[in-house]
């Protein structure tokens, strides 16, 4: 998956972000202030930067000004949610803006969107002999094409993006069917059953008590 630089001076939040990135299979680099972030960027090439605005030394806006030429997508993370601050961020060329406190799923979704926009999202992904080609929207099992309905594929994509994280049935409906879908959560159960059967993932897609479903992938990164 993608390589992401996290620039955040609050250690707990930095850890929170990187632990979740690790969970869904992203690589990450940690940085606790602006100038060290700049030196990391001199050495390494990254796909995305999560940048806190209030940083010791150089602040996030200043860092942004200095790295704009790299053309790396940047998502600002900040506790300031005034309109003026948001406009400053977007004017500097930020791709998105996450306000503290944020939901992990929301952060992952925004990262996903930003990566897809810059076509840094991985084209394919495989597990247990099942190959998922995201760009072609095709799934192969041991070289054999698997017939999935459009909705089943959407659901599979959501599960892969948020792997190792339990998603409630409501969340899955929202992410795979869209906000305005007025279906029952039982619809999700039906589709999950189909996916498990077609891909042979009865042990991969776990039912989590009281929560929902989770695609479990051990030791991927």
């Amino acid at each position, binding site marked *: 998956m993608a390589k992401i630089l996290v620039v955040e001076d609050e250690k707990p939040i930095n850890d*929170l972000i990187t632990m*979740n990135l690790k969970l869904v299979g992203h690589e990450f680099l940690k940085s606790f202030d602006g100038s060290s972030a700049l030196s990391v960027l001199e050495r390494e090439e990254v796909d995305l930067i999560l940048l806190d605005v209030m940083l*010791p030394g150089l602040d996030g806006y200043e860092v942004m000004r200095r790295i704009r030429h790299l053309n790396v997508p940047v998502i600002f993370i900040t*506790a300031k949610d005034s309109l003026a601050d948001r406009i400053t961020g977007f004017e500097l060329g930020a791709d998105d803006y996450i306000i503290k406190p944020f939901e992990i799923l929301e952060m992952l979704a925004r990262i996903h969107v930003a990566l897809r926009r810059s076509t840094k999202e991985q084209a394919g992904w495989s597990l247990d002999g099942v190959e998922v080609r995201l760009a072609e929207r095709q799934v192969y099992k041991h070289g054999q094409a698997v017939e999935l309905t459009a909705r089943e594929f959407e659901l599979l994509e959501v599960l892969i993006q948020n792997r*190792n994280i339990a*998603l409630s049935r409501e969340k899955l409906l929202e992410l795979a069917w869209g906000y305005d879908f007025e279906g029952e959560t039982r619809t999700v159960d039906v589709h999950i059953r189909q996916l498990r059967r077609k891909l042979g993932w009865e042990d991969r897609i776990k039912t989590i008590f009281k929560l929902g479903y*989770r695609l479990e992938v051990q030791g991927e990164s």
Partner: protein
Amino acid sequence: MRFWQKTLLVVMILFIVALDLSVGMIMNKSWQLNRQREVQRSDNELALIANNIYENLNSIKSRGMVVGDNVLLDVARSYAEYYRRQKIDLQLWDRGQRIYGRGGAAAGNETGDRAGQEGHQIERSSKLPAPYDHLILVYSRSIEDLYASQRELNRYIVFIQLIAGPLLAAALYMLIRQITRPLRQLSRTTQTIAEGKYGERVALKNKDEFGELAQHFNQMASAVESHVVDLSVMAEEKQRIVDNLAHELRTPLTSMQGFAQYLNAAHIGEEERITASGYIWSETMRLKNLVFKLLDLSTLRRQSIEMTCIQVDELFESVRLMEQGNLEQARIHLFMHTSTANVWGDPDLLASYLVNCIDNAIHASHEDSEIRLLAYEQDAQVVLEVRDFGRGMSPKQVKQAFEPFYRADPARSREHGGAGLGLSICRQIAEAHQAKLLLESEENRGTRMRIFLQLHNNEVHT
């Protein structure tokens, strides 16, 4: 209509009416006088002619001749022809019968102007003395000259008005513009201020009412300006406090929410579980501390304190005990010295004050440096002084230091210090003691914090 236009118009109208009225009256009077003079002259001449005719008739009579119509006609004719050369017409009437002359029927002793074909005339008549009093002599003379000169005078007055009017208008215009200039200046300045440029002032040095008005106006503008500046400074401070509070609340909340979610939903091992729950624990403590400090601040603001006599030695010792751990961790030596025994105050609050000061001093100090905690008397007050030799603050930082949530570090990182409420609490404690608080700091030289407390209990016990 503008003020200057109104003034100009009214003054012009008044002036022209007054001028016309007075000139008209003078002309009228002079016309009357001239005419009176003409009438007088006519009367005199008439009397002279009548007398001459009488003399003539008398001498004719004394020569024994009968004064008949023919004689009268001859006499009248000779006189009339003589006077015609002087543009005087004479008529002679006998008992209502015209004997000689042309003209109207005016007979009798009366005066009149007649505008005939020959123009304006004065006509006078008079009876001849007795015994010829049946004869009436009528005298008429043209006064066209008089009218002509009157007309000439009228024309001249109109001419003068045509010249004087514009001249006066121009002079008035200049005068009024000059007088109303301060008004325009005031108006312009008011407009500029209304547009938000509160620094604008009226530059008017007049010693008159306008100067006074300008002076008062400037005073008002200054008052408004200082209020506006105060308000914007207050608004800025408020915004900063809100921003900082938001940061202080959002940061731990983000971690707590995120890690709770992580524990709840993620597929993780034991190590991650311990890390995540540890963060939830530590961030909860951080939030708890913040909430307690905020509560302290608000209770301090509302509650009055109970003053007791405190042994300074004991106070210092308890503070040293509380700070021992922090001091050892930072490898900083605390030097204590007291030259006064007692102080009046609330022991818990004063201890809290000193702990806050020493915490700040520790964060500002370098390893192996010293912090001094001193108590001494000065001007009948007890001074408690906390002094460090650390990195100090710039004058701008000193100015904002007492603001709630203010942190010299713009990123507000957690490595040093708490939420930035320490000095706000110190200030509240000082206010509760009605004590003066003095913060002196120099960059890279250190900071000196002094509180001036009562030596004796000044409160009157009831």
